[in-house]
């Protein structure tokens, strides 16, 4: 059993007996709820997304969260980023945590590329000075060039994704959460993104990665945690985790 008081000081993420249950509500207004309650009909059903999961991630580690759809890996990522709260158990993080989670969530189509960079970087937790310092780097990486002052709604979907990804990858972080990086842009840009993620890792950043591209994550990460229906079933070298997951399929 894990205890926050016992983990080594260089730990970045602590997951302590975490349980997350989702209540799927069948009613969406007060009236419906009231009528359902009167008729003693079921108002909601429970779904266990994570069940007593525990592990720690040390500084500079790269961890792949593996599992099939519904195994709880994205839920776990959202617990680490603070979007979700566990129903029992605890999550702790140390340092700045930011995610490449569905990049572009904070973008507004009516603002220019420039305005969106500032808005989004601030949403991801950066200060004004940090953004100004990195602005040129962000624009360069995105390959947007002269279109930076054009409204984002006129961008092609590729340009949009490149800009969004570029902002996210340039945020100042200690722990980088990555959800499906390889869905971004065309192949050359994907390779560039992957190289950037590797570079961050080499500089000592901690990575937590979720992806369905098993070979890619196995190469990118040293450690793999395999989840099955919300339970941790394996925690070890990533290639072994992938092999085990593939054998599940059969």
């Amino acid at each position, binding site marked *: 059993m894990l205890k926050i008081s016992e983990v080594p000081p260089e730990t970045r993420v602590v997951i302590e007996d975490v349980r997350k249950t989702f209540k799927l509500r069948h009613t969406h207004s007060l009236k419906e709820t009231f009528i359902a309650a009167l008729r003693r009909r079921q108002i909601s059903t429970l779904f266990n997304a994570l069940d007593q999961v525990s592990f720690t991630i040390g500084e500079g580690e790269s961890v792949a969260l593996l599992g099939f759809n519904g195994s709880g890996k994205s839920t776990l990522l959202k617990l680490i980023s603070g979007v979700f709260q566990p129903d029992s158990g*605890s999550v*702790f993080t140390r340092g700045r945590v930011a995610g490449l989670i569905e990049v572009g969530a904070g973008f507004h189509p009516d*603002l220019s590329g420039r305005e969106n960079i500032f808005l989004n970087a601030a949403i991801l937790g950066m200060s004004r000075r940090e953004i100004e310092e990195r602005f040129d780097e962000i624009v360069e990486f995105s390959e947007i060039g002269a279109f930076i002052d054009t409204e984002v709604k006129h961008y092609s979907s590729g340009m949009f994704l490149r800009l969004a990804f570029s902002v996210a990858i340039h945020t100042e972080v200690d722990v980088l959460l990555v959800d499906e990086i390889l869905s971004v842009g065309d192949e050359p840009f994907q390779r560039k993104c992957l190289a950037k993620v590797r570079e961050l890792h080499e500089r000592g950043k901690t990575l937590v990665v979720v992806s369905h591209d098993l070979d890619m994550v196995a190469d990118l990460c040293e450690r793999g945690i395999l989840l099955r229906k919300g339970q941790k079933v394996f925690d070890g070298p990533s290639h072994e985790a992938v092999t085990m997951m593939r054998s599940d399929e059969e």
Partner: protein
Amino acid sequence: MSRTVASATREGFVRPGHGAGLLDVFRKRYLLTLLVRKEVRVRYRGSVLGWLWSYVKPLTQFAVFFLALGIFLQQNRNIENYPIYMFSGLVVVNLFSEAFSNGTKSLVDNAPLIKKIYLPREMFPVASTLVALVNFVPQVLVLLSVSLVVGWHPDLTQGLAFVLGTIIIVLFATGLGMLFGSVNVLFRDAQNFVELIVLVATWASPVLYQWQMVAKVLPPPFMFVYQINPLTAAVELFHATFWYPTTDGRSGLPPELAVHSVVALLISAATLLVGQLVFRRLENRFAQDL
């Protein structure tokens, strides 16, 4: 095995998603200004008149009320400088309505963000109030210029009354916005209910009529309740700022206005506190229920 005591946090470790509520919003002022600027810039995008709309809307509203109540119902004769009387009240109600109804909808409107990235969610209702304040400025400017034309001389007391009235509304609307906004995530009934409140708000305060008319009908205890309504107090404070100094002073302000204002301020502060508490209570479920 269940644990009742949360494990002690070690130095350097934090629980993600456990913020300090409204305090965090002001720690992240830069993000707040960007969110407000975004709303302000986006609002009239693609329209020819652009920012003129923020003058057109209150002026139209004013013209309709003035025609119906000032002329047809002859309030213009009963209340001196009725246009200024009415407009100073309308400005208050508009600020309240906009901040409150947009604050209520702000969480649902920002669902994509709330579901993906953690940031202090109080940011959204607070930003709604600030955007409403930005739209409040042109209306106050119109009011100011008209009052000056009629012979208004601003002084310090009036300035204080204006500031106090604005603070009462800002606190009250933000508190209610947080309260109804967080309930709205679970039950969209909240935003319809808020539309009702906003509809009633114009008539529940002495905006179009005078408090003396209410005093004739309502027994004193109810009259007190009527007058400590933060909206009523703020409207009367705005009357004290812009309208009263331009009249001969015969049909005066409520004698206990200072007391009402202090009580109203306390009610507004309490509303903000309750709003924050309810918000914190429901916040854990925002990301999964939106």
